């Protein structure tokens, strides 16, 4: 551990490399977290299957790339459409029955069961192997090659940010975005004023899954996926949202990129075998500190 720390101190280029990689990939995490925050804020549902939608999106890109030879970047709109449709189906069959449930436990466990179902289905369909769909765009060399950035990371950063901004603009200025925001504020009043709440909820959830899908196809290009890695993405997006707070668009981008950079550096220092443990522990630490801070004000996290 100390040797790794020394490496970072001795070569600031390497530290910069880790941080830049983290910041670029962080935009993808922020996109996924934005979807979670959307469903959470509007419907008061935390989707435990968030990461599984991401991985499913990744597998669609992978299949389209290897089976049909479509360039991975061009698969993004297809993935978004497929995941949007899947989101609508899951809303109709499962999520719509959970709305208005008083027992919060039911919603948590239903989406958790959905997560297990999707994990196992993906393993049965695509197999347990680690896959990637690298479009081979080459590397960008900075400072005489002391910092290497793969071009796909830059491309995916741009895509993630532009999808996020597009959605932000739609939410803020379109009639459709207005109905979603109105429903989030007060569903009953929105219903009285003629907004079809069920439709708004269905669309919100489907937008969430579509965002996950886009995130997933970016992830499979930049990194690798396998059927059981989804939980890590669920945790990451949850962390990002609780750090930023609901309905804080810029906050989600900042905390997404920040958490990702922090995770990259700590993962390197502590060791590769603890990389996933870092994410899980980080989540527990963030939650416990927030809880202790809330307790001082005689409040609690709910």
């Amino acid at each position: 551990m100390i040797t790794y720390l020394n490496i970072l101190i001795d070569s600031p280029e390497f530290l910069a490399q880790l941080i830049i990689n983290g910041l670029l990939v962080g935009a993808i995490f922020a996109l996924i977290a934005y979807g979670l925050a959307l469903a959470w804020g509007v419907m008061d549902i935390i989707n435990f299957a968030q990461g599984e939608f991401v991985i499913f999106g990744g597998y669609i890109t992978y299949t389209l790339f290897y089976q049909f030879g479509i360039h991975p970047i061009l698969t993004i709109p297809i993935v978004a459409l497929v995941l949007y449709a899947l989101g609508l189906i899951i809303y109709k069959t499962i999520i719509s029955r959970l709305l208005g449930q008083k027992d919060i436990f039911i919603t948590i466990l239903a989406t958790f069961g959905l997560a297990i179902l999707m994990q196992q289905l993906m393993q049965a369909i695509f197999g347990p192997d680690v896959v990637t769909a690298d479009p081979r765009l080459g590397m960008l060399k900075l400072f005489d090659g002391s910092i290497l950035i793969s071009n796909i990371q830059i491309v995916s950063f741009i895509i993630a940010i532009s999808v996020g901004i597009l959605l932000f603009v739609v939410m803020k200025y379109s009639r459709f975005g207005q109905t979603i925001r109105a429903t989030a504020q007060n569903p009953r009043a929105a219903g009285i004023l003629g907004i079809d709440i069920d439709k708004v909820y269905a669309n919100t959830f489907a937008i969430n899954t579509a965002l996950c899908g886009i995130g997933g196809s970016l992830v499979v290009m930049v990194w690798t996926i396998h059927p059981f890695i989804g939980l890590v993405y669920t945790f990451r997006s949850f962390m990002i949202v609780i750090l930023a707070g609901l309905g804080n668009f810029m906050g989600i981008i900042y905390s997404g990129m920040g958490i990702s950079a922090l995770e990259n550096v700590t993962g390197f220092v502590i060791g590769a075998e603890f990389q996933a443990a870092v994410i899980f522990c980080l989540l527990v630490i963030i939650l416990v500190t927030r809880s202790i801070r809330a307790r001082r004000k005689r409040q609690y996290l709910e």
Partner: protein
Amino acid sequence: MITNNKQNMLIWIGLAISAVVPLLLPNYITVLTYIWVMIILALTWDMLGGQTGYTSFGNILFFGVGMYVSAVVQRDMFSSGLDRFERVSEIVVNLNASEYFVSLAVGTLAGAIVAVILAVILGSGILGMRGHYFAICTLGLGHAAAEIASGIDYIGAGSGMVTPIYPGELALSKEAFYYYAFMLFAIVTFFLFRKIYQSQFGLALNAIRDNENKAESMGIHTTQYKIAGWSIAAFFLAIAGAGVGNVIGFIDPVEIAFSGPTFGVWMIVMAILGGKGTIWGPVLGAVILYSAKETFWTYLLGWDKVALGLLIVIIVVYFPKGVLGYFKERKQLSNSILSQKGEG
């Protein structure tokens, strides 16, 4: 409602049958052992999940901790001087009968104590949260434990470790010993938990479930009660874990000890299937789910875990009250219809 006396009579009949069954069906003894294990798992999960309404996804942590602590004690108690260059996962310890049982007892107790200490420390940080935050935090705990355990070389890292071999010279076979041990332990757990739920402590737990803010304002220190409940669950869960590690004979961090997709989910599903928040619900759910799993899940081949996921979604969305809850509701309904008729 059935009284305690009637219940006890039913229990004794059931116990008499289950004490004889392994003699009649020696081939199924391991499956029957697991039914007792599942009953313990479901009962301990229900302490927090059912009685206080706190959905914990991380109880598997205590199961795994008990398993690992016990295995380490059993390995190192009588055979000092672990070879540094040997691969931990290949170390097999041979003990004679007295050494085996002494180290098993000490290891189990040590595992239980470590689990309780962990429950108190973690609980004081985590149990102040509610709802979603608590659920996701405990889910994180369970997975963090698995990841950390797979990185520690002393306990075999990702390739796991082997528990001591059961001494061969005994008249009682390994399978029979663990069957009766788990049966006894499940009975103790059941009666103790029933006693707890009928006491003032149990009422406090239920008050937390019904309305935590009101309970707090009535002077119940809710967080302390939750920590106490979690610690009791952790104690029993760790003992079960220590036993299961020895039954399987091999410990692996992700697939066995901290296995979210098997033991970790089963305990929750079983408690809900039977009816959470009751004493008989988890027992019933454990028996139903595990017998169903053993009888027809093998025919599903690779799709058994898909079926589990589907089962959770279906149970939770369409059948959230469980078997006992369903019958209770029906009974209440028919009672109210009868009383209406009487009045008319």
